[in-house]
């Protein structure tokens, strides 16, 4: 089939990535359009568009150009979609936006107007994020860098600069933090309390903080450090500073450290520092085997276990008995397989820990130590646990926490897969997340067949979140989706059902 690709390049026109993704979806839905993208022309975005065949040969774009790219099956279809996109971009701003307060054009101008500013939240395209972080540090600001696609060299250099200046450099790729009740990036509305969190993992921090908050305890602060902070190259710079900060914080009694297993040298340094702390700790290195921790710390390989330790041993969702729930599930498709489609990378990692501990053969695109890496079309007998927030699914697309439709194709395929007994899902609520992920999910699965796999979900969130956790749970349950109190218990239920499939 002959396809037509049209490009329009708007010089010096900037929109943030969420606004661009929304427009991209609108254009992609136009009749005859095969694929569409609206992106800033940064080097990495240009490469994505070239690889997708969306950028014409010879198109010269720069980081401050907005590129509209449409691939359609006919020239008129492509032209109509392109014209529609241009119209949307040129639409005058609403009354509210037009009358909005004056906005500075730089961090430096913002700080001049409001000298009380002490933290920069940076979510610009990765190609420019390090430069903005450096400007913020130069101005004496702490930084939370939500942006990803930042080099390790830049991360190290920024963290060293921050440490020298006594500033916290959270990130890059830091999905969440809560400082003094301020939700930074993707964060939940939590009870305030005495438990602090240091997280190298966004959804891990969200799951533990929500489980603690919903259990009636509270969070003092949650400091994000970025997913690579505990790698050898970075050496845990921000993690060690966060331990210092909690050590001197009178509001914090207990600290939970959440990360994928660190480099052994970094683990030794961090555990030694924990041993010198006046506070008690829970160390949650997801996927690590039981490890020796200092006397003032306890170890958990799962998020649920970490939350329970932080709660002084109080069990989460004690009323939930996976075996009993499994026996009440009416339909038990005979396939025996489990497929997990996760928005949260750490929830996917926790699922791998629980399924492998239960003796299941597992494969994943984000494999933890000891789990086989997923290869398309191979290992048909293994459970597949997929992190849909991984780069291969989100390059040039929104994260599934913002746009749950990222999961749609994989979910449709799984619903028709006779080898599966169970599909495991997560919904992540809170600020920054989709307004109603349960509605999206229930619509998609409404017409599933009688012999479709059992759907099991967990909902990361709190009653105080904008989406209201109980309302989301109710919506799922009305659609016949079984909801577990935590991701770990959803996994245990999946195992219980899959192990008795067809009986």
């Amino acid at each position, binding site marked *: 089939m002959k396809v037509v690709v049209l490009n329009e390049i708007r010089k010096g026109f900037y929109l943030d990535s*969420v606004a661009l993704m929304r427009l991209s979806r609108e254009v992609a839905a136009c009749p005859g359009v095969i694929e569409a993208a609206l992106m800033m022309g940064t080097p990495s975005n240009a490469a994505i568009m070239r690889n997708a065949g969306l950028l014409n040969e010879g198109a010269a774009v720069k*980081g401050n150009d907005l590129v509209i790219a449409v691939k359609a099956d006919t020239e008129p279809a492509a032209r109509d979609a392109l014209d529609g996109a241009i119209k949307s971009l040129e639409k005058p701003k609403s009354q509210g936006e037009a009358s909005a307060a004056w*906005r500075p054009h730089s961090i430096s101008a913002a700080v001049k107007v409001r000298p009380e500013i002490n933290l920069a*939240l940076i979510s610009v395209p990765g190609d420019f994020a390090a430069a903005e972080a450096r400007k913020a540090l130069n101005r004496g600001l702490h930084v939370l860098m939500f942006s990803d696609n930042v080099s390790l060299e830049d991360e190290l250099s920024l963290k060293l600069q921050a440490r020298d200046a006594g500033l916290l450099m959270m990130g890059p790729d830091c999905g969440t933090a809560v400082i003094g009740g301020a939700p930074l990036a993707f964060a939940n509305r939590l009870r305030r309390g005495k438990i602090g969190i240091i997280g190298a993992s966004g959804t891990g921090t969200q799951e533990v903080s929500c489980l603690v908050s919903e259990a009636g305890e509270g969070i003092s602060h949650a400091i994000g450090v970025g997913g690579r902070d505990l790698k050898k190259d970075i050496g845990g710079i921000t993690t060690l500073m966060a331990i210092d900060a909690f050590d001197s914080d009178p509001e914090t009694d207990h600290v939970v450290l959440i990360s994928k297993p660190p480099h052994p040298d970094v683990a030794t340094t961090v555990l030694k520092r924990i041993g010198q702390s006046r506070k008690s700790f829970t160390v949650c290195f997801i996927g690590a085997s039981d490890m020796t921790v200092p006397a003032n710390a306890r170890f958990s390989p799962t998020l649920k276990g970490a939350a329970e330790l932080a709660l002084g041993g109080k069990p989460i969702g004690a009323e939930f008995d996976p075996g009993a729930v499994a026996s009440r599930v009416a339909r038990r498709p005979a396939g025996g397989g489990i497929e997990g489609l996760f928005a949260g990378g750490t929830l996917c990692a926790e699922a791998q820990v629980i399924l492998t501990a239960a003796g299941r053969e597992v494969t994943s695109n984000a494999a933890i130590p000891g789990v086989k890496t997923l290869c398309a079309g191979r290992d048909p007998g293994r459970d597949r646990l997929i992190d849909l927030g991984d780069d291969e699914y989100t390059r040039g697309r929104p994260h599934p926490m913002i746009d749950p439709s990222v999961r749609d194709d994989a979910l449709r395929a799984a619903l028709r897969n006779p080898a599966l007994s169970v599909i495991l899902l997560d919904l992540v609520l809170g600020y920054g997340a989709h307004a109603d992920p349960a509605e999206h999910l229930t619509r998609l699965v409404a017409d599933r067949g009688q012999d479709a796999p059992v759907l099991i979900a967990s909902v990361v969130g709190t009653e105080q979140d904008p989406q209201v956790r109980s309302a989301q749970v109710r919506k799922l349950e009305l659609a016949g989706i079984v909801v577990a109190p935590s991701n770990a218990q959803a996994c245990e239920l999946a195992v219980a059902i899959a192990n008795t499939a067809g009986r």
Partner: protein
Amino acid sequence: MTDQNGPQYQRLLAGKVEVVNVGLEGFVKDLHDCGIGVVHVDWKPSAGGDPQMAALLAKLGV
């Protein structure tokens, strides 16, 4: 920097957070809703959209 009250990052937890938001505009409303002071920067790529030049200028403090 460290003063008699300890390094700034230790004081961050004790004080009030005031944010400058550079990038996704959606974060501004969330912070406002929680009563957190926030200023949104009307950001555009600097240095004519050249990331390397932007990084160099930032290092030079421009």
